[in-house]
Each structure stands twice: as structure tokens, then as C-alpha cells.
């Protein structure tokens, strides 16, 4: 049964919200199989309307649990939801343990929710290289909201900012003071900072630190000033959950701000600019390695650099001249 459908047929079925076709196309794109570029060309005209929500934060901060609740909120609003969850690949084996589905089970039998786990496959920045394309496939599938959950991020895995319209950064009490909150990197990409596990000791102090750090920034008139929302996303009784409604309302507020001020245009421009850079890099590298393949030159170059007969920049210049500028 597998592999029988043509790419065109799978895309046609994707546009009719067929889950199996969506799933297969994602695999095709993720593995950079032959029709990858063709699929994306066919899919592209059917994208651009969904709201893309990024969720990042350290491992264990509660991203998946919170995502599970947010899916529920978006479903209440009548939106279909696609979710991409990224976990790291092993730098040793290339394998991965993708465990986010465990906390994303409330909607496992809801046809309006499509969840896909992805391994980072060595891509830095908190996502996987294919994430850009996978979001588009989920948009073409008919999802009005696409949630992108990064792998457990530290200070600098900020690529989600290039993809998401609204970006949530999760922190938990005791993760540091206002100095941590003032550092460049992940804290600056937040449109909304979520202080999760706000029932833990030290939550009040953390909230003060976060708000203090935010108010130390300067914002133009009419510019979005990041908000802090306290939440409790894991509780044995539903009535012990906190802040989920407020968070959903704050996300809606940020979306309204993006549309009203046309800031969304800049977000979209930045995304495409970033994406073009990545594609150029990938394609150039492919051309060059294709040129070098089987010539034994790659080893020669590497050895000449190690032996200091040459340096990396000179080698790259020479290779570019040979395989690119002269057209192989």
C-alpha cells in the first residue's frame, strides 16, 4: 500500500485534510526525498493564513502540558490545530527519544488536531531544519492554528522567532534573578513570558524579577511590551489549573496587535528572509559536495589544512571558484 500514491495525489489529499497524506508528505520533506521541492511548490499557494504560535523554554518547564491546554482553547474557538513538537537527536547515534505525545493526549481522538513529533537531526536553534516546511504542510492541511514547540531550550535556541507570529517563553520559579531575565537571547524573543508552575515556592519573587527586567526596557509608543502571565498547567484537579484563560486572552491580544499595527508584515518578511538564507546555504553546499564527490579532493583539502599548508578560508575560496563560479 505504501508508496503507491503519486506526489500530486498526496498533495491533493492533503488539501482535503487527509491525515495519512499529511503524515507521508511530512516524512518526505523531513528526509529530503526526491520530490521535496516539488511538494513545497505545490503546497505553498495554500499557506499564509494560519496563526503560528511558538512555545519555547527549558526542558521540564511544562511546554507540552501547557500546549495541551492551549490546543483545547483553540479548539473551543473553532480552530483546527496542527502541532509540531521537536526533541533532540542523539549526537552519537542519530537516534531520538520523542516523548512529547505523553503530555499531549487530551486531544488524541480529535480529528481537528494533528500532532507530529520531530527530531532536531543535528540542526541547531531549537527546531529541526524541516520545521519551516512542516508548518506549511500543516497550514495546507487546513489548520487555522499551528503550534511549534521547540526542544528544551537554554539561552540561545531562538530560531522559533523566525517562524512564529507570537512567541511564548516558559520559565519556572527559581530559574534565576532579574540578571538572567535581562540577558540577550531567549528572553528577548518573548512576546509573552509564561511563569509556569506558579504554585511553587519563589513564584512571587520570580514574577517581580521578570516584571522588573521588562520595565527596564524601553518601548516605543504603541509597541508591544512583553507581558508576564503566571500559570499552573499541571494539576490533579482541573480547578487547580491557573492562568490558562488569561494566557489564551493575552495571545489573542498579541494577535490583534500584530494585525492592527501591520507588525505581522515584518514578521512574515523576516521569516522568508531567514528561510531563503537557509535554502541558499543548503543548496550551495549540495552543489559543492556533489562536485567534490569521488574526486578524493575533500580529504586532500582537509589534510592540507591540518598540515597548515593551507587555511580554511583559502580552501573555501578555491573550492567556490572551481565548483560554483565556473559552473563546475
Amino acid at each position, binding site marked *: *500500500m505504501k508508496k503507491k500514491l503519486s506526489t500530486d495525489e498526496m498533495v491533493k489529499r492533503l488539501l482535503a485534510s487527509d*491525515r*495519512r497524506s499529511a503524515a507521508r508528505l511530512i516524512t518526505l520533506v523531513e528526509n529530503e526525498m526526491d520530490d521535496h521541492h516539488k511538494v513545497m511548490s505545490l503546497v505553498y499557494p495554500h499557506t499564509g493564513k494560519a496563526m503560528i504560535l511558538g512555545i519555547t523554554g527549558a526542558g521540564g518547564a511544562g511546554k507540552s502540558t501547557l500546549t495541551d491546554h492551549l490546543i483545547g482553547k483553540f479548539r473551543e474557538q473553532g480552530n483546527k490545530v496542527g502541532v509540531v513538537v521537536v526533541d533532540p537527536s542523539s549526537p552519537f547515534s*542519530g*537516534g531520538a527519544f*520523542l*516523548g512529547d*505525545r505523553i503530555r499531549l493526549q487530551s486531544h*488524541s481522538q480529535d480529528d481537528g488536531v494533528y500532532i507530529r513529533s520531530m527530531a532536531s*537531526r543535528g540542526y541547531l536553534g531549537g527546531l529541526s531544519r524541516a520545521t519551516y516546511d512542516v508548518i506549511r504542510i500543516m497550514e495546507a492541511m487546513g489548520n487555522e492554528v499551528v503550534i511549534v514547540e521547540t526542544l528544551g531550550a537554554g539561552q540561545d535556541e531562538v530560531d522559533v522567532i523566525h517562524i512564529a507570529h507570537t512567541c511564548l517563553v516558559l520559565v519556572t520559579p527559581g530559574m534565576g534573578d532579574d540578571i538572567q531575565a535581562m540577558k540577550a537571547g531567549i528572553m528577548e524573543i518573548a512576546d509573552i513570558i509564561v511563569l509556569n508552575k506558579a504554585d511553587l515556592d519563589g513564584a512571587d519573587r520570580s514574577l517581580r524579577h521578570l516584571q522588573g527586567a521588562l520595565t527596564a526596557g524601553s518601548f516605543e509608543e504603541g509597541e508591544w511590551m512583553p507581558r508576564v502571565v503566571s500559570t499552573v498547567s499541571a494539576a490533579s484537579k482541573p480547578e487547580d489549573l491557573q492562568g490558562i484563560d488569561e494566557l489564551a486572552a493575552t495571545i489573542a491580544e498579541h494577535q490583534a496587535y500584530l494585525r492592527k499595527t501591520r507588525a505581522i508584515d515584518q514578521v512574515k518578511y523576516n521569516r522568508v528572509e531567514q528561510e531563503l538564507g537557509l535554502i541558499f546555504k543548503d543548496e550551495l553546499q549540495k552543489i559543492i559536495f556533489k562536485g567534490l564527490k569521488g574526486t578524493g579532493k575533500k580529504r586532500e583539502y582537509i589534510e592540507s589544512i591540518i598540515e597548515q599548508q593551507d587555511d580554511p578560508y583559502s580552501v573555501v575560496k578555491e573550492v567556490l571558484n572551481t565548483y560554483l563560479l565556473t559552473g563546475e
Partner: protein
Amino acid sequence: MSRGRKKRILIAKPGLDGHDRGVKVVARALRNAGMEVIYAGLHQTPLQIVSAAIDEDVDAIGLSILSGAHNTIFPKIMSFLKDRGASDILVFGGGTIPKKDLENLKSLGIGEIFTTGTDTRAIIDYLNTTLER
């Protein structure tokens, strides 16, 4: 990093027993063998497992059953996969499953059953061989 098709395996524990040490050992071994393991965890219904397998486009589903419910759960999974046009997904399993039941389970289309005491290398070899298409 690595290009080309990666093996994706859904690992789940259907039914009511909560003994997940074994299934975690297997999941970790597959990870270390370079596979992408989607770990669905405990108490999964057959329908949840089949939906997850389809959405995640896995090559195989591995089920751990130590509760004795294998003769109910495996047939359900196979029938849901068939209903959804997904019979090409390999199903394998493990746990405390009596020898007398193995033949019947295999006749349902279950690829292999690894009973307790199996070396994880046997599971890796099996998947590497069976999934090379």
C-alpha cells in the same frame, strides 16, 4: 547531519498494567541504534495507538504487554490498522506472553513477539532487517 530515511518507531504500552521498565529499556536501545522512537507511554487504547502511528508516519509499532491482555489488544490494533488503510505498518510486541499464544498472534500478522529475557540486540537486528525495503 544524517540524510536519508530514518526509521521511526512508535513504542507504547496498551492496557492497564503500569510496568514500563522493560518498554523504556527497549525504547532507549532503539534510540541508541539510531532510530527515532516516538514514546507514547502508558495506558494507551488501541485506537490511540493506531491514530498516533498514522499521524507520526511510523515504520513500526512496538507494544509491550505484561497484563495478559495480548489476545484482545493485538487483534484490535491489527483491525484498526486495516480499517484505516495502514496495514503496511509493521507491528511487533513483547512482554509476558505464553508460548502457546505466539502462533495465533503471528497468524494475525504480528511481525514478531519478543518474550521476556530477549536481548535488545535481537530486536534491533529484527527491525533493521525487516524494515529494509
